[in-house]
């Protein structure tokens, strides 16, 4: 498959603020990419640079092999779904969708025909005569989508298009978008700050932080093996345990309670952070008075038990760090604040990030 979008060393500064710091990214034909990160991480800036709404200070952006770095937005072979849809308030829905084809020189009749097809594709077949302000947020979102795909672009950019919708509708639209993308075969670059949304839809997730790409990978891979401490903390919940490598052995010492664990992961750095996901911890209450046994486990005191619908989060104080364990369903009766517990886990579940502080 050929690269539909390639970004090489793109930089952008706003005054003293670095919005994009040497960003490299390649998107394949028909791929669904999510740009994920907290607000201010540069994901929207990157999208605007691709669309041509702002000029990068350095670097190169190519679409389907053609360098578009110097092309104005209206000459780039891509389309965008804007965050607040940016529908034209003075045009009805059909004319909104027909706007692109009209500007590309189609007759009014041909453009309307294409627009009707696109509207049918997004599930709004008979709404052409309405005006944007007469429609619900979800419907406007579909119109914006129809307007963007009617030109049959090679690449579709989506700037948090679902953020204004309520949760239920958003979930439904996520799946619909995913199916639409699969049937159209257009590459999607989707900006979001919602990791669940990214996990649901994207083939690959690009995690951004402070203008840099922290990690690119499939959802489960990013969750299982975060490349940096930022990714570990941003994606899902993570317990970060400082460790030191045991010299000459395939083992690490956790700074907490000095526990030693075997370690299969090859590591150069002598120390770093071990990532332990809350669901990988097994809790068992230690009877008061009994001496803690088993070196390959941690011991701590429960501080909080939080029931969240389908699962329970248990906060456990271990030395001066609070770890979170996640139990499916309700917690056993003796898992209450104040009790001492043993935290056991399979050392293979530890993911080590070398060199992290």
């Amino acid at each position, binding site marked *: 498959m050929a690269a539909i979008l390639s970004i090489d060393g793109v930089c952008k500064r706003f005054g003293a603020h670095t919005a994009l710091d040497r960003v490299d990214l390649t998107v394949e034909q028909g791929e669904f990419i999510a740009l994920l990160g907290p607000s201010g991480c540069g994901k929207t800036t990157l999208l605007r640079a691709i*669309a*041509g*709404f702002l000029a990068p200070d350095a670097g190169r952006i190519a679409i389907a092999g053609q360098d578009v770095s110097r092309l*104005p*937005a*209206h*000459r780039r072979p*891509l*389309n*965008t779904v*804007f*965050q*607040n849809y*940016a*529908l*034209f*308030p*003075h*045009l*009805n829905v059909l004319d909104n969708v027909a*706007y*692109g084809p009209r*500007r*590309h020189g189609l007759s009014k009749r041909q453009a309307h025909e294409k627009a009707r097809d696109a509207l049918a594709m997004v599930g709004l077949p008979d709404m052409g005569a309405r*005006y944007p*302000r*007469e429609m619900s947020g979800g419907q406007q979102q579909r119109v914006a989508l129809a*307007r963007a795909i009617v*030109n049959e672009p090679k690449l579709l950019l989506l700037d948090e298009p679902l953020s204004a919708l309520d949760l239920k509708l958003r979930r439904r639209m996520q799946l619909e978008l995913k199916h639409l993308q699969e049937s159209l075969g257009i590459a999607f670059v989707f900006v979001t700050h919602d990791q669940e949304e990214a996990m649901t839809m994207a083939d690959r997730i690009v995690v951004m932080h402070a203008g840099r790409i922290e990690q690119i990978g499939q959802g489960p891979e990013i969750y299982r093996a975060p490349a940096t401490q930022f990714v570990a903390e941003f994606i899902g919940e993570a317990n970060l345990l400082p460790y030191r490598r045991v010299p000459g052995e395939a083992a690490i010492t956790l700074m907490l309670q000095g526990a030693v664990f075997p370690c299969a992961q090859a590591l150069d750095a002598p120390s770093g952070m071990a990532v332990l996901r809350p669901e990988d911890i097994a809790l068992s209450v230690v009877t008061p008075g009994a001496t803690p046994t088993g070196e390959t486990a941690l011991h701590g005191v429960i501080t909080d038990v939080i029931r969240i619908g389908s699962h329970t989060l248990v906060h456990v104080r271990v030395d001066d760090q609070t770890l979170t364990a996640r139990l499916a369903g309700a917690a056993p009766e003796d898992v209450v604040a104040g009790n001492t517990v043993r935290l056991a886990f399979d050392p293979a579940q530890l993911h080590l990030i070398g060199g992290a502080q």
Partner: protein
Amino acid sequence: MARRYTPLWLLGVPLLFFAAFFLAPLSVVAVASLTQAAGGLTFANYAHILADRYHWDVIAVTFRIGLATTAICILLGYPLAWYLVRIVQWPWWRRVCVIVLVVPLFTSNIVRSFGWMVMLGRNGMVNDALMGVGVIDRPMRFLGTELGILIGMVYVLLPFVVLAVGNALARVDPACEQASSDLGASPAATFLHVTFPLTLPGVVAGAIMVFTLAVSAYVTPALLSGGRISVLSMLIFQQYSSVFDFHYGGALSIVLLVFTLIMVAAAGRIGVPAGSAR
């Protein structure tokens, strides 16, 4: 008790104000226009106006100047508003521009029109400048021509268009223009198909203000016409101030009002964007 009368108060006070300051004077004029000095209902005043070619000429001059003023104000005011809203980067420079634009409105219309009389005279600055550049070799006559009146009117009324259009331009969602260029529209096409239609209500609002003020203006045309050109407001002034025929003057006023309302209603239809709730 008090609560029961609250709606009455809320409705009554503005209604009273409206009646006292707008309806009553207008009714006085309307009644006067339909009566004779001797009393009794008559349409003679209107018949007199509409049957006389001279009046039609004056009406034509009045509305020609009004329309030309409106057109020129929009042609000059739109780019000026664009400059202020879209091109000026420093807020302080924009503030200076707006002050320069608005300050003349604080000076008396008479003073400003006299200023133009001096500027547009045979040996005025305008003629000097035009001759200096070599565009003309004999002084042009501005005073007493429609061109002279037009220059004075555009100067007085231009700020209204700049402010109305500027306001509309500032409200255009930049995302709409980006969406337009994203969909393949060149900057010119974006202006034609998105920006201009979205600012059209502002343009129409400015145009209506300028047009109504221009056709009813008295001071500027009176001073700059040099007695050679008459507009309706000057005829009306004559009737009220020297002839003392309030009936005939009233009829002239109503004619001006009706013609103006017809034009404004027509313009208002253009200004309503399709699909708006209005």
